[in-house]
């Protein structure tokens, strides 16, 4: 369960978001500059909110009233940034093992087991910088899962991939994320992502939540002109 209520101001943009507790997948959509990535970074603890509360499975990660602010490294959140952001100088094994504790051999074993589980063990010896966009996304997910996260945050997992790789990665994500019993938050530009990942869709516009519902809700009762345009076409949103 992840419950969020945050207010933050970053670079002139005022973010006020309240999301009731939700156990499964939350897909956050919205136009560029709506505050989607800022919201993710508030959850991660990278951007300090002005005030609010973030509660994960009964534990407060942040609470302005009680002055609780769990440091980034102690929140145990799996983060998959845009384009994966792999460590380019390390091997895939090194990337995945980075967050695992223990001796080198044990770390490697655990990383290898995870790579095999995700069906990408053949990439283990490759350098981070030598991977394609789709491969990088898979490894980035694997790296995030290696710390046994209590929640998973993905920023635009299908953005920047070519048309062939996108459905493949989407299928991969749907497949993997469905097996997880932890809250998942996925920021996306793409209605297809929202449809495929299921769960609730949260629409963010200019730092405010304008609608929460399923893709069908958005299509049948769009609350704003943006949602009408967004849900009306199954095409990915054009990036300006």
């Amino acid at each position, binding site marked *: 369960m992840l419950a969020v209520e945050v207010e933050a101001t970053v670079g002139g943009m005022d973010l006020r978001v309240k999301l009731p507790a939700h156990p499964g997948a939350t897909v956050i959509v919205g136009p560029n500059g709506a505050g989607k990535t800022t919201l993710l970074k508030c959850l991660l603890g990278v951007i300090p909110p002005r005030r609010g509360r973030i509660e994960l499975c009964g534990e407060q990660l942040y609470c302005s009233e009680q002055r609780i602010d769990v440091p980034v490294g102690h929140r145990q959140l799996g*983060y998959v940034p845009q384009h994966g952001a792999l460590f*380019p100088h390390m091997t895939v094994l090194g990337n995945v093992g*980075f967050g695992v504790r223990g001796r080198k051999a044990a770390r490697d074993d655990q990383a290898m087991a995870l790579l095999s589980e995700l069906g990408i063990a053949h990439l283990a010896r490759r350098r981070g910088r*030598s991977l394609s966009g789709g491969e990088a996304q898979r490894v980035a997910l694997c790296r995030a899962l290696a710390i046994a996260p209590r929640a998973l945050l993905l920023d635009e997992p299908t953005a920047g991939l070519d048309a062939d790789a996108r459905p493949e990665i989407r299928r991969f994500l749907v497949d993997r994320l469905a097996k997880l019993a932890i809250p998942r938050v996925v920021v996306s530009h793409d209605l297809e992502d929202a449809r495929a990942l299921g769960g609730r869709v949260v629409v963010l516009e200019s730092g405010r939540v304008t609608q929460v519902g399923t893709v069908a809700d958005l299509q049948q009762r769009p609350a704003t002109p943006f949602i009408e345009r967004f849900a009306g076409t199954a095409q990915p949103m054009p990036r300006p």
Partner: protein
Amino acid sequence: MAGLLFAFMVLPVVALWVTLKVDDLLAGIADPRVVPALKLSLVTTFLSLAIIIILGTPLAWLLAQRDGRLTRLVETVVRLPVVMPPAVAGIALLLAFGREGIVGSWLGRIGWSIPFSTAAVVMAQIFVSAPFYLQAAASAFRAIDRDQLIVATTLGASPARVFFRVGLPLCASSLTAGAAMSWARALGEFGATLMFAGNLSGTTQTLTLAVYTTFQSDMRAAQAISLVLVSVAFTLLLVLIFRARGTTEGHP
């Protein structure tokens, strides 16, 4: 037209090599000033480079992480020595660390005197050459994808681990290039050293000062020492460049 500047820059370098007879070169190298000056230059420049790297790398990392007014102010201040004429730098160092200087007068009371010592040579070199390293390091650190650092932190890495395992390896080649530029500047240091450290053979007479001193009596000997100086500089620069190229192999 396009080649004019190139020709102008190459000609003096060529002249330095071709106008000297082998006998003169050997005689010049045999000058008693050469060996102590070469030794002093190598020792002091490596010492100053080591201090710059050890103290400068964390400073550059810090500057790259922040983006406030104080950061910009600090960055501007550490860049000042680049635009400061070396002779002025020498005066400034004397006013700070000289016998009558702000800090120097205090040091004097506990029996420490910095000017005209080897320490002064190192200090002059650090002052004029640190900006080259700091600037290269700060811009390299700033070019790192923020998300890589954020991910490393979410994976539970301490700030030190983020720095040593992610930041430092990603910038290794830029840092090496910055260190090479900084070291070359220190090796060529003349003005500030002369004002602040003097020109004492064996203690403060570096290769550049030896060139200047010899030049007043014997042009050929000065040229021979110059050749030693540029040979050392070119060799080390080449080594650094090739090593840097080795570590960047495979970069996109």
